[in-house]
């Protein structure tokens, strides 16, 4: 390997707390940053950027759910509904009051956080599967409300057209412009989460996840931190909803239904509960896998089946393979793609002197 870890001696608490104790890790981050900010947007066609954009939005949502489910141990099947709360709040502010995106976006997030904290109150009394059902009820109630309260949804079609975001007179419309727009929020979400989980709040979350009674005994205010976890997670979800709204130019609750909540849960379980990198892996995996599978089948399916059959087989086989791969990855590594990646890394860390 090109680097060795010897000689890295920590002499202060700051050094011990550092994100990247090794110089090479800092270089790796720099390389990733150059890749994301220069190489990808300049090197990729619009089409590929559109896929990256979908992943970017998904990453923010997955991070939010991971704070709640992965770090605090509270299962939520209401993530999609919190997204719609953010989406409609921002859309209403943007259309009725003409707010720019940098105002309506945090407002959407805050409204989602407030609603999330309310939906999260049952978590003070119930845990596990019971909480899952309580949040499911929250999902259904929010869906119903948006569908029927015209004051929120803007009429029978329950959708609000939102103007494109503008920054210094520049309208952000093409996929390339959108890419930079979204990247800012992804970076904020990733760095924010990484800092959150190593802070006092994050440690309290983890203590609650590992044993809530023990956490209470050592002086953690369960009431406050459980609701805080719901609020922060919903804030992320709300922002995800707003990003979708600005990305598509419309707020529409039909894309934030139960299926979406389940998808996000699947994402963080596949990626790895309780890890930032896992959320990113999960979002990439779930978004990209169906696309890659389709291309693979379009390229090679014709060798086996007739063209008419291929069209019927592609989508169905895609679902089967998708499900199969999820099972495969979970069996190989129940702790998710993040753990798989760490295992690979640890192997090469001592390579070729494995013991």
């Amino acid at each position, binding site marked *: 390997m090109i680097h060795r870890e010897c000689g890295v001696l920590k002499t202060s608490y700051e050094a011990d707390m550092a994100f990247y104790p090794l110089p090479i890790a800092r270089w790796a981050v720099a390389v990733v940053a150059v890749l994301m900010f220069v190489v990808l947007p300049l090197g990729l066609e619009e089409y590929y950027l*559109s896929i990256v954009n979908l992943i970017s939005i998904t990453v923010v949502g997955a991070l939010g759910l991971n704070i709640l489910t992965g770090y605090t141990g509270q299962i939520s099947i209401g993530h999609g509904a919190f997204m719609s709360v953010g989406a409609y709040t921002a859309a209403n502010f943007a259309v009725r009051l003409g707010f720019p995106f940098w105002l309506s976006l945090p407002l959407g997030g805050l409204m989602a956080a407030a609603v999330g904290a309310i939906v999260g109150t049952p978590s003070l009394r119930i845990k596990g599967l019971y909480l899952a059902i309580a949040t499911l009820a929250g999902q259904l109630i929010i869906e119903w409300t948006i569908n029927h309260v015209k004051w929120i949804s803007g009429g029978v079609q329950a959708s609000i057209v939102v103007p494109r975001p503008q920054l210094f007179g520049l309208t952000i419309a093409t996929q390339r412009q959108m890419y930079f727009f979204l990247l800012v929020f992804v970076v904020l979400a990733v760095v924010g989460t990484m800092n959150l989980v190593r802070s006092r709040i994050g440690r309290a979350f983890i203590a609650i996840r590992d044993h809530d009674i023990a956490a209470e005994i050592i002086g953690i205010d369960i009431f406050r931190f459980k609701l805080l976890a719901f609020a922060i997670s919903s804030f992320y979800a709300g922002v995800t909803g707003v990003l979708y709204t600005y990305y598509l130019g419309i707020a529409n609750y039909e894309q934030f239904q139960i299926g979406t909540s389940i998808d996000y849960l699947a994402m963080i379980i596949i990626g790895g509960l309780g890890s930032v990198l896992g959320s990113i892996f999960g979002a990439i995996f779930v*978004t990209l896998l169906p696309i890659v599978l389709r291309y693979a089948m379009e*390229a090679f399916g014709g060798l086996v089946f007739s063209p008419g059959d291929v*069209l019927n087989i592609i*989508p169905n086989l895609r679902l089967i393979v998708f499900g199969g791969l999820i099972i495969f990855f979970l069996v190989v590594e129940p702790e998710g793609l993040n753990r798989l990646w760490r295992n690979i890394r640890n192997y090469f860390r001592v390579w070729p002197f494995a013991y």
Partner: protein
Amino acid sequence: MKRCLVVLMGLALVGGVGAAPAMATHEIVIGLLCDRTGATQVVGVNLCPGSHDYVKLLNSKGGVEGHKIKLIEVDHEYKVPPAVEAYERFKKEGAVTVVLYGTPIVYGLTQKVTEDKIPGITPGFGRSDATDGTRYPYIFPLMATYWSQATAAVKFSKDQLGGSLKGKKIAYLFFDNPAGQEPIPVLQDLAALEGFELRTFAVPSPGVEMGAQALDIAQRYRADFVIAHLFGRSPSVSIKELKRVGYPLRKVVSFVWGAAEADIEAAGGWAVAEGYNTIQFAGVGQDFPVIREIKEMYKKEGKEPPKEMASTVYYNRGIVWVALQVEAIRNALKAKPDGKITGADVKLGFEKVKGVTLGGLVPPVELTPNDHEGGGWVQIWQAKGGKLVKLTDWYKAYPEVLAKHIKEAGAKK
């Protein structure tokens, strides 16, 4: 790059276009979103083959004005993010027109197609206010919208109930989502106009449980007529439940997404559904020249015609949608014979579409820059003796009510 080539070659195979690289520059690309999986897959599996077969037939006869058509299909599971990805892919492949499949997808992509100037057709997927071509220049409902279907349904019930609706009770049974709610304001207006009583019965998602609503309609409300607007599995459930509580199905008329053979078969067969009325915006059955030609084409290849063909309601719609797109492309090509047409050219082509009939399969659609719906023509077909029988010819109703709503929607912003 090499991988790109492999993928493109695969695409060519899938499209059934065959390897003709020299033609590639003049191939006209149409993007078709489809849902062969997902909640309403019963529609997609039968509809999309119709589109492919029509394009295949067209290409075997030399294409449009000498240019071949390439139809790219992507399955989106009726979800918005995959549909966005698929749309971007169509754009990359140079599509000049796309089928936006599904109400949430139409909403999600409306702004994008307008910015990219690629006309998107949304037949039967709503956005009734998109009939106004000046407000939505790149959205083409093409066929009767939910508002037009509502007026047609009321007209039909009026005729069935002896020419007057005064004092009658009409039940509107609908799937409780934006698409299901869309016709309600129009129905309310018509209730005031015709003097009938309207009561709405919402069916919550996923719409497979409506015993209570059926009982309510038949025995408590005692409706004189039922207008049903349901999707996916729920139309068959509505037939079954209304039958169970003894409501006469000849007093039920369904919107276009509860109108297929598949719904009737899933409800327990033709004997159960006898009398059930359906609104159609494309011809039903196989008695059309173009269907015979497709059968002929398969026979020449030594193959059986595809089994999806038997589901004529959806299969024929697949033909009609693409046929109208092709007509728009033909109009665009007439203006620019070199084949280098863009979405904007095809948009102008759409606005000149007129007089495409395919032997009665296509309604008498006539599109203009103001009217992107083309009239909103429908036929009523009834389940009778094991098949759907035509009750009325193409008709439309209450144009002044529709015009008022379209104008109001435009004023609202």
